[in-house]
């Protein structure tokens, strides 16, 4: 045996997407549209990864490719090192689709029982799991109510519970907070953070940047099917030729001293305050750059939907 066998193998990444591409033929014309264009990214085990981009930029399509609900035109995707067509891979994934509706005639508990049974859970362990999950998503009070009477936020939460039923190591959430009121999205964000604490990898997408910013370790910015920027949140939002000095209890005298020193050294003091860019700013920059690229190249035949108004 080789010497390397003594070191424990690093766990395989939760998602490893290489050159993922999805080309849709257009229905009534001979054209095509590239919904996802050679997207490569990695979601490490235990990480929360956010994919952001305006509507129609290819987020949901990327997720379906990762889940194996669609076959990529090109490229590969692996979940914990397994192909997604492998049932073993799918028992490691929980999925919450965009705007889900479940069987309206089922109650919250019945919904979880249904999905639990599909995952092979039975009897007492299933019963206990249902209790745990309802507690986790704070729906114990609605346990025996039909989903027809659930609010949007409750539906998203039962959807999240459904995704978690077989204790997957990866959850894929498509716009988990879309259409949910601020309090509801707060609860969902807290849930995502709890999952992270438990070591579950999360792959989510959103067009609501603020929320991604709060929970994600790393983000990818996707626009017109292309992954524009990718990286840890801190790195992406840091401005490289700027430095921030954070002081506490600084007297005005100290500040004027620093100002003088800066001037003496030939640097510019830009501002005193919060110098970071926001993810929102970064995002809009990328969208603008993407649109400029598209204008100059005229590459795709299909019109993308316009970016959201800031």
């Amino acid at each position: 045996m080789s010497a390397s066998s003594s070191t424990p193998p690093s766990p395989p990444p939760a998602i490893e997407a290489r050159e993922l591409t999805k080309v849709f033929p257009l229905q009534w014309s001979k054209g095509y549209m590239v919904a996802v264009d050679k997207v490569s990214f990695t979601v490490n085990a235990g990480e929360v990864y956010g994919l952001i981009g305006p509507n129609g930029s290819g987020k949901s399509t990327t997720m379906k490719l990762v889940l194996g609900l669609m076959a990529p035109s090109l490229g590969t995707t692996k979940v914990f090192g397994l192909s997604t067509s492998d049932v073993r891979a799918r028992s490691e994934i929980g999925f919450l689709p965009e705007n889900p509706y479940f069987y309206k005639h089922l109650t919250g508990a019945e919904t979880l029982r249904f999905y639990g049974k599909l995952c092979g859970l039975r009897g007492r362990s299933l019963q206990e799991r249902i209790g745990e999950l309802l507690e986790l998503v704070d729906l114990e009070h609605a346990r025996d109510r039909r989903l027809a009477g659930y609010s949007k936020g409750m539906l998203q939460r039962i959807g999240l519970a459904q995704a978690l039923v077989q204790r997957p190591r990866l959850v894929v959430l498509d716009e988990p907070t879309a259409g949910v009121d601020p309090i509801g999205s707060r609860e969902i964000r807290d849930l995502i953070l709890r999952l992270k604490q438990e070591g579950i990898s999360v792959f989510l997408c959103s067009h609501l940047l603020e929320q991604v910013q709060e929970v994600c370790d790393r983000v990818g910015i996707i626009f017109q099917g292309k992954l524009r920027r990718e990286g840890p949140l801190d790195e992406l939002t840091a401005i490289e030729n700027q430095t921030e000095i954070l002081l506490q209890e600084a007297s005005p005298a100290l500040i004027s001293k620093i100002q003088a020193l800066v001037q003496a050294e030939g640097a510019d003091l830009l501002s005193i305050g919060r110098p970071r860019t926001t993810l929102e700013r970064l995002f809009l920059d990328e969208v603008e750059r993407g649109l400029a690229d598209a204008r100059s190249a005229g590459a795709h035949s299909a019109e993308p939907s316009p970016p959201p108004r800031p």
Partner: protein
Amino acid sequence: MDPQPDIPAEYHGRPRRPLVRKTLVILLVLWTFGAVRGAWETPLIARLRGADLLQAVPAQETETKLGRNAVLAILGGMRPLMAVYAKLSAVDKWEIADWDEVEKWYGITILLQPEDYQHRIDLAWHCAYNARAYYETSQHVPSGVDRAREMEVWTDKGLAYLDAAIPEFPDRGELLQEKAQILERKKHDPCAAAQTYRLALGKKGVLGYVERFVGYQLAQCPGKEQEAYTYLKRLYDEGEKNHLPTLIHEVKRLERKLQIPLLLRIPDPEPDLPGTRNTVPGLKVP
């Protein structure tokens, strides 16, 4: 692989539209399945027809055959429902004595359920009894209509429907029995009636009394008295169960007519029993 002519080469990958290819594969499999299952299907259908489990279509002119077959095939299990509808429509027309319509709706009923001989009997009964009675007694018959002629026309129609149906159901006795009854009651032709009752004997659906009816009609047929006497006497001798009022009455009448020696005659019936004419059981005349 499906061609992907419109997509730049850098995006060429898996075939993007397997639909056409898959449709062709599916059609091919369905065709092969169709070709292979024939070897099972054809003998199975023949066996089912042999076991009286599938409708074997009686030989007819092609036009009727196609018409009937198409109805049989396409309506499938709906036929009983449609037939009930057609029959109720016929009953409706019967109530207003529109005999042509009754005939038409029964025609549809029979088209829908050619295998149900009872519809043929119903139709004959409507013609020979109800329509006939209408022309005989109704005040609504327009003046100028030749009542006697219409009565005969409708009676003959009834008989004609039965004559058409009898070869289609060679094993059923009910049709012959119905025909014999019309001959007996409406045509007053006991000789033909006796012969027809006799044809019915031993067939499906024929009960014991028909055996006696043969004798009763023979007894009315001029020139057949001796044959009738022998026939009825044999039934009488079979035992107590046949010692019915009509039978005794007829035997005694024939004994007198044929001047059978007193010693060979049957004993007198009990005086209080009336000599009834035969009645047809199971017939509910509404």
